[in-house]
């Protein structure tokens, strides 16, 4: 009897303990996870910093001091390069390890390993696009440079030194929730992280869409709706800049793009087309202090943890502070005591698609003029959580990988004979990380430009200011020299005429130094005027933010203060509304509005065009605009083929100048519609839609509550995300904050004898959801506050703003 009792309770206890140690579906091992000593509670640090004042680490050459200020920005003081980047890797991992690994997994197409088969197509797409291929090419080149090799190795050693101190209790909480462990960091992972940046900023094109539109519209109509250049553009490099060089000659083949058949590949995720930024510099002649001021705010997805990690790096020859991307050594956007620089994306079509004609079923050869070229075949393996591994065969051509083929995204493609190879600048070895290293150490214009020439991709408009007084703007990147129209459409891979010929020499990239007007700005608009001797094309040039910025910078006169620049970063003036609303109001038939609709309309009449959170007018305008825009371009709403709408700027241009254009006629009706009909219909819909929203939500549709900005955790865990953040601004506005996307890092730097800088981002320095520093900057960011940044001249300065100092010692 007592034996039976013992056996039963022993058995039951054993099974229970075992069950609580295992993962079931999405539920982590309950016993392990809830154990307050080692489970998730261990990560609940609140305002405390959970690390030792002295840490002994293997491989360090000398002592390193890491001082954290009250924003948890680490200020790293090292005695040599190796220790500096070692410490940067170490402290970035301390705060952001899970993010670094997750994002490199995502870049490398390894998400199925964590979340299962639902993500397999995403993973296959990453590999097929050549993310790993490009990262490997970059790394191979990087390791040939001794300086960069040392930097990458040091950073890797630092991250791994941190990882090796961890066991389950110290793991970031996401590892505990998803029940896996961090793997060692490698230099390839840094290259992958860089590849991800390239993909984010230079990873979209409309080649297939353009081909389909050409087939639908024919050339004249296509050029009218999708012009390469809009009237009254103010390019990044001001009009009138002289191009004193002889362009490299390229052969323009006698080709007219003619598209008969519609083409399709798939609807796979693409980067947000609003990935962009603002930057500007004003010269001392325009500032109150007489010294230049630089401002920059990159617009990216809002995520927890944030894409930016702010840090200061100090060692012999270097003392730089700014935003870094976790996983990549160095500072990406920042300043030192002599210079400051800021980046905005410089869109230019550097991604082209080629239709490949294989000669046989094996796909071992493809046609190229009268030759047959050999392919290479790579088999990619995918681990999938909860099921067996999968392999995918990718065919490589001299252009690049065949992304879409008979196996991808579905076997449907077999019928379509789709074989599209991707030629992308992101596949080429990039030396941009070397550029960061050099730029971080530059003291003046010449040193900066010497370092910047290594920056090849993703192409950026680089704003520069030096304490000595120089200001400059340069469109920097590696750009293929194209003949007019090349790469705008899907191209024939069997005809060598379509191939890229040459790269624009670096010294012919567009640039301007110390302009007379005393300021320079960029906001992802067209880079140059039509006199620039190379063909410049992108489907996505912005057309409003730069105008507002230039207008404000001209108006501000010559007593500009850093505070003015912060105010301009927060500027919510909606130039798109100012340009479109008068036309919309003028052509609207008031007599057809009900009394309530007229009241709503009055709100718009009285509006000052600011997208402020506590106004209802912006909601009304934005909803009306979006309904109208969708009605106007109903002819391109067909989802069965890749198509896209003409740009907002061109839509407004057509509304103003061609009100009788056929685009206003609805395809779904037999009657002929005009702009005024669309305006009335869309206004009435808008009114109805917003009244319904009001009833459901039981609150007024003020812009702040209606638009609901949110910051999403990278693993899309809702409780780790923040919702309904009220922040001024919107699409095409200087304060470019839309739902999940916008001003991801706001920086203003005033140079001079002493450099003063301000900055903030929607997030916090810690990636730990259990830390106060996880989201401590969010509320102030939403209010438009800029924090003064602590820039330490030496390790002994400014002790009062530090909250914790740690010494890393060689073990």
């Amino acid at each position: 009897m007592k034996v039976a009792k013992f056996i039963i309770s022993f058995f039951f206890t054993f099974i229970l303990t075992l069950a609580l140690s295992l993962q079931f579906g999405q539920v982590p091992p309950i016993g392990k996870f809830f154990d307050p000593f080692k489970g998730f509670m261990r990560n609940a640090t609140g305002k405390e910093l959970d690390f030792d004042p002295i840490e002994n680490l293997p491989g360090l050459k000398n002592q390193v001091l890491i001082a954290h200020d009250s924003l948890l920005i680490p200020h790293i003081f090292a005695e040599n390069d190796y220790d500096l980047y070692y410490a940067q890797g170490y402290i970035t991992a301390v705060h952001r390890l899970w993010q670094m690994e997750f994002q490199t997994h995502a870049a490398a197409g390894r998400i199925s390993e964590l979340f299962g088969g639902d993500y397999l197509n995403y993973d296959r797409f990453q590999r097929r696009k050549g993310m790993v291929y490009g990262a490997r090419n970059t790394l191979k080149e990087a390791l040939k440079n001794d300086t960069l090799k040392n930097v990458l190795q040091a950073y890797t050693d630092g991250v791994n030194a941190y990882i090796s101190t961890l066991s389950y209790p110290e793991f970031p909480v996401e590892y505990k929730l998803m029940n896996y462990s961090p793997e060692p960091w490698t230099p390839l992972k840094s290259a992958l992280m860089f590849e991800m940046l390239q993909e984010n900023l230079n990873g979209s094109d409309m080649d297939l869409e353009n081909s389909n539109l050409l087939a639908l519209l024919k050339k004249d109509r296509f050029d009218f709706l999708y012009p390469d250049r809009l009237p009254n553009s103010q390019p990044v490099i001001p009009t009138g800049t002289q191009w004193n060089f002889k362009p490299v000659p390229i052969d323009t083949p006698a080709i007219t793009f003619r598209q008969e058949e519609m083409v399709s590949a798939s609807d796979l995720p693409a980067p947000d087309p609003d990935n962009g930024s603002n930057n500007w510099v004003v010269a001392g002649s325009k500032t109150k202090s007489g010294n230049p001021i630089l401002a920059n705010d990159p617009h990216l997805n809002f995520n927890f943890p944030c894409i930016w990690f702010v840090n200061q790096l100090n060692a012999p020859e270097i003392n730089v502070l700014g935003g870094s991307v976790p996983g990549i050594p160095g500072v990406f956007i920042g300043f030192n005591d002599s210079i400051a620089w800021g980046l905005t994306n410089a869109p230019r079509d550097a991604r082209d698609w080629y239709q490949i004609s294989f000669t046989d079923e094996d796909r071992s050869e493809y046609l190229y003029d009268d030759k047959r070229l050999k392919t290479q075949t790579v088999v990619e393996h995918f681990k999938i959580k909860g099921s067996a591994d999968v392999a995918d065969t990718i065919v490589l051509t001299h252009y690049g990988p065949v992304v879409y083929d008979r196996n991808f995204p579905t076997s449907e493609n077999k019928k379509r004979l789709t074989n599209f190879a991707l030629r992308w600048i992101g596949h080429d070895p990039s030396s941009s990380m070397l550029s960061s290293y050099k730029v971080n150490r530059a003291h003046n214009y010449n040193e900066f430009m010497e370092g910047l020439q290594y920056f090849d991709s993703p192409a950026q408009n680089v704003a520069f200011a030096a304490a000595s007084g120089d200001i400059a703007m340069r469109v920097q990147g590696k750009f293929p020299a194209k003949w007019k129209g090349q790469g705008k459409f899907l191209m024939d891979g069997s005809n060598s005429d379509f191939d890229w010929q040459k790269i624009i020499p670096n010294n012919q990239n567009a640039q301007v130094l110390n302009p007379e007007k005393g300021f320079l700005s960029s906001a992802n608009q067209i880079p140059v005027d039509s006199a620039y001797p190379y063909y410049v094309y992108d489907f996505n040039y912005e057309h409003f933010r730069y105008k507002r910025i230039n207008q404000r910078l001209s108006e501000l006169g010559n007593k500009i203060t850093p505070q003015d620049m912060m105010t301009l970063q927060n500027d919510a003036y909606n130039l798109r509304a100012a340009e479109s609303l008068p036309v919309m109001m003028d052509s609207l038939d008031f007599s057809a509005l009900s009394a309530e609709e007229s009241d709503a309309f009055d709100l718009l009449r009285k509006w000052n065009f600011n997208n402020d959170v506590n106004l209802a007018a912006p909601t009304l305008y934005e909803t009306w605009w979006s309904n109208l825009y969708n009605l106007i371009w109903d002819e391109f709403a067909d989802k069965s083929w890749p198509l896209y709408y003409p740009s907002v700027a061109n839509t407004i241009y057509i509304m103003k100048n061609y009100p009788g254009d056929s685009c206003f006629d609805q395809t779904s009706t037999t009657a002929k519609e005009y702009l005024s009909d669309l305006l009335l219909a869309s206004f009435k819909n808008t009114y109805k839609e917003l009244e319904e929203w009001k009833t459901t939500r039981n609150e007024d549709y003020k812009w702040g509550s209606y638009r609901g900005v949110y910051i999403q955790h990278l693993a899309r865990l809702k409780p780790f995300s923040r919702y309904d953040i009220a922040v001024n601004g919107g699409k095409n506005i200087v304060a470019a904050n839309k739902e999940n996307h916008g001003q991801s890092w706001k920086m203003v730097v005033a140079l001079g004898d002493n450099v003063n800088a301000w900055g903030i981002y929607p997030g916090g320095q810690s990636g730990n959801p259990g830390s106060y520093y996880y989201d401590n900057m969010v509320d102030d960011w939403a209010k438009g506050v800029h924090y003064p940044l602590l820039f330490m001249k030496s390790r002994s300065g400014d002790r009062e703003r530090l909250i914790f100092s740690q010494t890393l010692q060689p073990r």
Partner: protein
Amino acid sequence: MKFILKIIFIAALSYAVELFLPWWSVVLSAFLIGILIPTSGFNSFLSGFLGVGLLWLIFSIAIYNRSDGILATRIAAIFQLNQPVLLVVVSSIIGGVVGGMGALTGSQFFRLFTKEEKKSLYN
């Protein structure tokens, strides 16, 4: 008295081994103390339940307070509990149940080696 002592011993040993061993070491602790201080079945379960459960509860509350409940609130939402306090309670119950089962098994193990008192039909 013996009961209270047993609870204290289970909590103390659990605390000590938790610092070095995985979470299931609390089951072993309760089991060991269950052997060393045997009590009747239910009594034994309760001592393990309270020993480990209270240890986890107190520890959780301390961390919760120190960290302003930031993480507990977020994790509670992941498990669809609307009160972070519930999360603390759930975690102590989990600790309590496994602790109780460990102690009970310990007592029963001890009993394997004791002679059952034979009840005589004559007295």
